[in-house]
């Protein structure tokens, strides 16, 4: 381990924290807390990108770091906070599966995804090869978060953290995607968020709550 240079150690730490945050989100009940965690995740992502950019000197990595900062650290959390205040959804009700067993599942998933990533990581030329495993894990964990939550808001947050995981994966595997693609993706995420905003208000005015159990009427088993 000591052979690793400082920045790499830093990067690995960031990756580990990234994973930890995913777990935290899995456990977090308060919606506001979830948003903060998301913002934190964004910050980590941004930091990692910057570090990489400085290390490799890839210019477009700086750019994407800025993009991340603007979108995922500043704008989205702000938007979500605003929505929460406007809609008054602070607490998520009890998740479908209780927290400890979710944690356990999470662990298994992490093991699975690491096992999955090993052959790839072996091929990767990049310094941050181990990030891939982390990324897969985060994606799957956010998936789990989405499954277990009952509030629309927290599902969306899960979705966003999944996006973060993807970006982390992209960055650590290939130092980021081509510029144009990243722009497109960012644009999509932005639009998605705006659409969601509209959505929330529509749902709200229909059901005056964002609880998902209102959205279970279209079914076959009737």
């Amino acid at each position: 381990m000591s052979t690793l240079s400082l920045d790499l150690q830093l990067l690995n730490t960031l990756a580990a924290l990234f994973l930890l945050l995913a777990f935290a989100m899995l456990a977090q009940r308060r919606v506001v807390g979830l948003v903060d965690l998301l913002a934190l995740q964004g910050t980590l992502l941004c930091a990692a990108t910057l570090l990489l950019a400085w290390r490799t000197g890839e210019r477009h990595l700086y750019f994407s770091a800025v993009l991340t900062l603007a979108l995922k650290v500043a704008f989205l959390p702000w938007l979500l906070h605003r929505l929460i205040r406007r809609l008054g959804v602070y607490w998520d009700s009890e998740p479908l599966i209780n927290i400890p067993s979710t944690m356990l599942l999470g662990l298994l998933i992490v093991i699975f995804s690491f096992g999955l990533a090993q052959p790839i990581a072996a091929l990767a030329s990049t310094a941050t090869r181990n990030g891939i495993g982390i990324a897969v894990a985060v994606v799957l964990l956010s998936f789990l978060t989405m499954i277990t939550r009952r509030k629309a808001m927290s599902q969306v947050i899960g979705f966003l953290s999944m996006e973060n995981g993807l970006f982390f994966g992209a960055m650590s595997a290939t130092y980021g995607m081509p510029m144009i693609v990243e722009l497109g993706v960012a644009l999509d995420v932005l639009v998605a968020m705006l659409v969601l905003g509209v959505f929330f208000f529509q749902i709200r005015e229909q059901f005056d709550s964002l609880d998902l159990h209102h959205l279970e009427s279209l079914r076959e088993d009737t």
Partner: protein
Amino acid sequence: MAGNPLDPLSILLALLAAWVLIGMAGLARPASLRLVGRLLFPLGALVGAAIAVVALVSIVMPPERLVLAIGLPDLPFHLRRDALSCVFLFLLGAAAAGISIFSAGYFRAGEGTAPGLLCLQYHTFLASMGLVLLADDAYAFMVAWESMALASYFLVTTQHRIPDIRRAGFLYLLIAHVGAVAILLAFGVMQGGTWQFTFDAMRSASLAPAWASAAFLLALFGFGAKAGLVPLHVWLPEAHPAAPSPVSALMSGVMLKTALYGTLRVAFDLLGSPAWWWGLAPLALGLFTALYGVIFAAAQTDMKRLLAFSSIENIGIIFTGVGLAIVFNGNGMGQLAALALVAVLYHAINHAFMKSLLFVGTGCVLHATGQRNLGRLGGLIHRMPWVAWTTLIGALAIAGLPPLNGFVSEWLLLQAFLSAHEVPKAFLNMLLPLAAAIVVLAAALAAYVMVKFFGVIFLGQPREATLRHAHDAGRLERIGLVWLAAGCVLLGLAPMQLIRLLHVVPEQLGIAPPLAAATSWWMLVPVAGRQASYAPVLFLVGVAVTIAATIGGVSYFYHRRVRRAPPWDCGFVRLDARMQDTAEGFGQPIRHIFQPFFSMQRELPTPFDAAPRYRVEIGDRIWSGIYLPLAQGVHRVAQSVAWLQQGRIATYLLYSFATLLVLLGLML
């Protein structure tokens, strides 16, 4: 390669096209009955007659091919005319001619579909049947086959406002479609990996025995569904009563035969040399179908249902013959195989005439009385003599009585059975003669059924007051009736000429050498070298002469005085129509003897009932035993699958998640 415009195939094609055009013309003024009735249908009849003539003439000509410019990119429509297709085209044309001319006078205004549309559907139906017979590649065949089903479906549901009729149409199309898919799979096997779907490719493709057997069984299933082999017969007694009578006549008389054509084409032509044991399937199924059909026919109280079941019986006899032919052929007894095959073909042609005749007859009765229920008919021979006497001919013919045509084909079939003991297979040589006994039993029961059919409808006293002013068939209708009846008589009296032509079929299929001296012009001899004979003309002359002599003698030597009086009935005075035997009553011995076949609910009166009534309902065990459980099974499965989709988005996400994990696991 475009054939020259004067060879039979091109002419036949042109005639089929003419049918389609006539149908289209109906759309010009859909509401006008005069256009359709007075012009188009008679034209269609002419085209039918023309087709019959051309086909008959060209049976002996060598096969010829034609390729059209439509179809799939590397699979244009291939057409081919050979003896087999000619025989069936003759059947189609001759029967269609009579039925069309009858329909010209039959269809009335304000009955469901508009006349013009009906005309289109009707002629499309005819044309697609013709194309089925000419098709020489799988795709063209299937297109024609399904178009046939579709057109007939629309014809069946002409009066779609009646729920039962809709149900009948649905059942019909469903079974037809499933059958078609089976046929499709059979073709899929037969193309043998050459990806050539032309029949020539299939002829030349060499299949492993297992594959060939699979193909044959699939085809038998598919064609059996169309032909109404038990247990795939359920649509038939529903669809035939639902359809307008001329349509029932076409479906029963002609369409069922296209299934026979398909079976023969696949078994003897495409698959080359069928293994002998394949024959056992159609043989057994056919026997059971024949018995089943005729027994249920005897128990019916609706005249068109009765005829539908009688069709099932005849199909059974036909497929018995097919099975016999395959068995003979597989054991290298070519002559006998040819004999059985000829019997089958001849019976198919006969049945086309007889059954069409009977169905159009019921059509007249239906129009005159508005009744299909045998319990409300009777004594119509006085009001509608034309219909009655022509129908009598049809009834006697289908009952297999000499010297009419039904007897000839059954005679040939029995002659074939008579040599079945020579089949070099243990058990089989003992069982086949018994099969002959079943065929005879079916034929005898058919006589029973026909006596019931004719007697209850036309004889006795009218069971309803309204029947007193029933009217006879119209002019065009009479032409149709007479045409079909004449067919029955001619085929009965001069079978040899046609049979000599039919012998070309087994010869072309390479089953048997030409049977040159087998038949003299007036004496029918089954197989050269056996002395058994039947001379219909001589026979008829004999009977006629004796009858004439008797009549003459009686009226010459004795007086001719006749006095009319009320019926005696052993001195019973207050006799009325209600005391006649009803349809149920007439069927009662059958119900008694063949109890296990039926599922009956009876409602018997007690001596103390104020208004005693007797009701009996005949149910089909196969329907309640196979089809209902099937439907319920699917329903249950569907219900149990439904909980997969319970509207909760978390669950759906879980599905995606699980799928993802599983696939990733697979990739490890």
